[in-house]
């Protein structure tokens, strides 16, 4: 592996920028994701930064099931994220559709629309669980 590749890999795993996206969830996972970014849990110490635009992000942190309304928009957002991109599904709904399974307005989990790298189950997962998911993702980043 060339030096440049090594450098890129190092940079990627030391500062993954995330885009937090609610694809139709109930907010509970969103506040836990935000809580993970706050002083008490502070995932920023891993170099993780919350971004506003998909074009700046490396990792899509998705919460909630995919609603039929969000599906085409979500695909569009996903396509805007530069390669290589990673997707984290936070919460039961994002993993499988969870409690909303069978509702007419939803498609199912995130993986019905885009490939998912890390699943974090829980309703909502505690910030510790989200941090664990992040650590697993970072390990994956180092492997790429």
């Amino acid at each position, binding site marked *: 592996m060339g030096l440049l590749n090594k450098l890129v890999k190092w940079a990627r795993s030391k500062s993954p920028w995330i885009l937090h*996206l609610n694809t*139709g969830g*109930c907010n509970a996972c*969103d506040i836990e994701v935000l809580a993970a970014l706050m002083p008490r849990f502070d995932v920023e110490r891993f170099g993780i930064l919350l971004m506003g635009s998909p074009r700046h992000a490396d990792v899509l942190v998705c919460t909630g099931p995919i609603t039929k309304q*969000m599906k085409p928009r979500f695909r569009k957002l996903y396509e805007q994220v530069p390669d290589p991109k990673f997707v984290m599904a936070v919460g039961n*709904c994002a993993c499988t559709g969870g409690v909303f399974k069978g509702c007419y307005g*939803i498609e199912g989990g995130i993986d019905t629309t885009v490939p998912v790298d890390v699943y974090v189950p829980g*309703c*909502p997962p505690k910030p510790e669980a989200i941090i664990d998911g992040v650590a697993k993702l970072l390990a994956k980043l180092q492997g790429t």
Partner: protein
Amino acid sequence: MSRVTIPIGPQHPALHEPEHFQIFVEGEIVVDVKPRIGYVHRGIEKALENRTYIQGAFLVERVCGICSNAHQCTFMMAAEEAGGIEISEKASFIRTIVAELERIHSHLLWLGAAGLEIGFETLFMYVWRDREVVMDLLEAISGNRVNYAMNILGGVRRDISPELADKIRKGLDYLEERTNYYKKLCLEESTIRKRTDGIGVLDPITGVKLGATGPTIRASGIKFDVRKNDPHLKYDEADFELITWDTCDTFGRVVVRVLETIESIKIIRWCLNHMPKKGDIMPEKLIRRVPEGEAYARFEAQRGELVYYLKSNGTDKPYRVKIRTPTLANILSVAELLKGSYIADVPIALASIDPCFSCEDRITFVDVEKEKAWTWTREELRKYSREFNEREKRW
């Protein structure tokens, strides 16, 4: 001056949930706003019809994760009213305590988010740090930080022991001290005042006409609070004040929420002191079926009045549930209160109603619009967009 349309959302840094707003501006001034809701529509009301009350309790909780207890509690209140099920004194106290703890959590969350919107990140970090205290208390009571699953038909699922009550009291002392500090901060700090004074003005008459509720309308000086006007749970006995503010702007909404947090702490203290030591918290035998009847339950959720209509038919599943959430009531006033403000003030003015789109997006009203959007082919959509643009030019 020519009119420019600025689309905000469905994904936007100022919105934490998918929602779309078309903002029409002339220069820097907002002249009109069109909210487009429905991205979070999941079909919960329909799903409730083929789930039992016990399953439904977990589903309504996830209408909105921030006011989860309010939803579950109102659903249970409606079912109990419809079926004539009584709840014990102690269960009623516990419901009130959890509801008020949730209000504190939600109001602090909002205060932090508002700090973020106005670029006051220190406030954001401080408030969210202190909010962890109330999250810990809720976790100690219910076992989960969010979505507490406390209510069942005829009572609550978990008791508050005297040791736990002491822990809550200790937590409240800390929260009270911090909230008083935020109160001082909000009333005196010029950073907050400069960004919120006179922004997003909603005069009381328009507010009432558009059906705004909760802190949004109380900040316009209207004394409307279900806890006082139509008391449920233990609110008729609890000693607290109805907070209003008469500046009608975003600043008023900040102050109302901070002061309400202090009142909530008072209510919880009162409940802990007056809660019966002994007594059942739930019926001995789990209630599965609700006798035939219909009911209409009102609850003062954090964002305003939450209403559940429930019709039962004697089986273990509700016949029909209709939910009316506070954000839906408030979203109409958004268009009104954004008019005339600067583009830069849109995020905070929008946030000032504490919008919760996951709450709002289950309503039938959305279906109508949504059906349209679904059935349109690309060509039809293009045609509509052309027509729409032509109309825009004519304006």
